[in-house]
């Protein structure tokens, strides 16, 4: 995973913009400027070289490129704002999506994310839930399935809650709910009593939640378990015994830095015992 990446001398502090196509899969640092494919060719139209005079400038085809996380539009170039590897994905219409894969442990609330929170306070008709962001999120007691003003949910301070954000921006405190838009719980709500909650990086969560993740399939074959992933880097695990729960927690934490072979080795060793 951590192979030595040759860093070109001219890319130091972004003093010269590079073509995005040549940097795919390489480490980029904040401040680097990237040129989009249509601007690379100095001979063609829109390049850095001399542009031929055109009577209809509108006939030049414009490619729509989407800026993903870690990138920002700066004029007609892309500016890197996070350090990581540059990725690209082609989409049917337009130039595709560019983004930066970065390692991050600190969570920033985003609308629509499913997270695990810990109830820290009850005040009036809202709960204050710690989700690992800059502010505790507020959760109304009516935001549970089947909750009415008389039928309050049984939530105590210290409980674990799995919910999603309805309001999350940098100007206000985030608000979360435990029901979806139809009013059904859909797996959200108070998480059960036993089990273990531990913290991992956000990148690992995204990897584990990707479709067809091998790790989860292998872990599922190992022990019967219950597992909840929160996009804020929190995982809740419950197995039959405490020992199994701890083993699973250690495996998931270590999966981030293991190669596939090492992982298969460990799983086979555990399956024998």
């Amino acid at each position, binding site marked *: 995973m951590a192979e030595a990446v040759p860093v070109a001398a001219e890319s130091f502090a972004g003093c010269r913009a590079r073509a995005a196509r040549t940097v795919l899969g390489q480490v980029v640092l904040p401040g680097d400027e990237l040129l989009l494919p249509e601007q690379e060719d100095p001979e063609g139209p829109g390049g850095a070289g001399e542009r031929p005079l055109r009577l209809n400038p509108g006939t030049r085809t414009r490619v729509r490129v989407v800026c993903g996380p870690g990138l920002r539009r700066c004029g007609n170039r892309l500016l890197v704002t996070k350090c990581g590897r540059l990725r690209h994905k082609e989409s049917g219409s337009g130039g595709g999506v560019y983004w930066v894969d970065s390692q991050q442990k600190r969570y920033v609330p985003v609308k629509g994310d499913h997270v695990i929170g810990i109830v820290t306070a009850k005040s009036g008709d809202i709960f204050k839930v710690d989700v690992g962001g800059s502010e505790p999120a507020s959760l109304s007691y009516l935001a549970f399935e089947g909750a009415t003003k008389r039928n309050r949910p049984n939530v105590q301070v210290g409980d674990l809650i799995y919910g999603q954000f309805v*309001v999350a921006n940098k*100007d*206000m*405190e985030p608000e979360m709910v435990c029901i979806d838009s139809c009013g059904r719980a859909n797996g959200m709500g108070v998480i059960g009593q036993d089990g273990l909650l531990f913290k991992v990086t956000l990148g690992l969560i995204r990897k584990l939640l990707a479709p067809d993740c091998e790790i989860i399939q292998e872990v599922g074959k190992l022990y019967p378990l219950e597992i909840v992933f929160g996009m804020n880097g929190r995982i809740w695990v419950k197995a039959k015994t405490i020992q199994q729960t701890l083993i699973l927690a250690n495996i998931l934490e270590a999966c981030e830095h293991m190669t596939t072979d090492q992982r298969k080795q460990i799983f086979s060793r555990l399956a024998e015992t």
Partner: protein
Amino acid sequence: MVATKHCAVFTSTDLFNRQLKTQQKPEEAAPLYRWFRFSNWSDLTQPTAPCPAPHGPRQWTRTRRLSIFNHTRKRKRRGAEPRPRSHPEATWEVELPAGGAPSSRRSRDKRTNRYCIPASPGSGTYTRHGYIFSSLAGSLTKSSENGALPVISVTRETESQLLPDVGAIVTCKVSSINSRFAKVHILYVGSTPLKNSFRGTIRKEDVRATEKDKVEIYKSFRPGDIVLAKVISLGDAQSNYLLTTAENELGVVVAHSESGVQMVPISWCEMQCPKTHTKELRKVARVQPEFLQT
């Protein structure tokens, strides 16, 4: 002699205007008040016949009036020495509410000479029961205009601070937002900048005039926006002015986008950044074209 109570009931409220305009002695003009005699407080409501004044007709001296205009006569402190009472019997005193330093009041003066200042109240004063009271601690100024009543006003400093009044249009800056309200700092009242900024609150239901329950504060204001608002209340104990933007001409005037560029309004609810062409939702004020500076 039976101790009785006398009560002076004013028959006319324009006490001062009549005296100034007629320029005659009060006893020559129609009497402004009549004396009634009663023995119990409960008899006050029953009609009784007027009686003669307990201490004789009032006597006006011209010199005393002029001395008050010139402010040469030093005012006596209340309670320093007992005032001479011309009438030995108990008389009913008019108990006026003690509100600040009265600028001109002689209600306790039980002498035969009673003084009235013919004037009209200005800033820093208020009238109650026909008397002018000061509402500030400051220096008294009188401006005598030609033909009109002199105006008495009390000023605290050389320049008085402008306070936002109910109904005033204020310019404020949003400091923080909540799902229920937006907190603002009031910077200008009308076109006058304030030395100290006041705090104000724009509640969710005061943002728009229509569809008040569907308002989202995040789609109307953001921290850092400059907003034109109108004061609807001076606020409660937390001393936050209550503001409203529920008019076409009120709302966000200046706003910056996420990239830091000042945005251009494109409709009553949207603003666009000229650099990134992203649209952001705000409650935009419809500024008259003559006030726009391009």
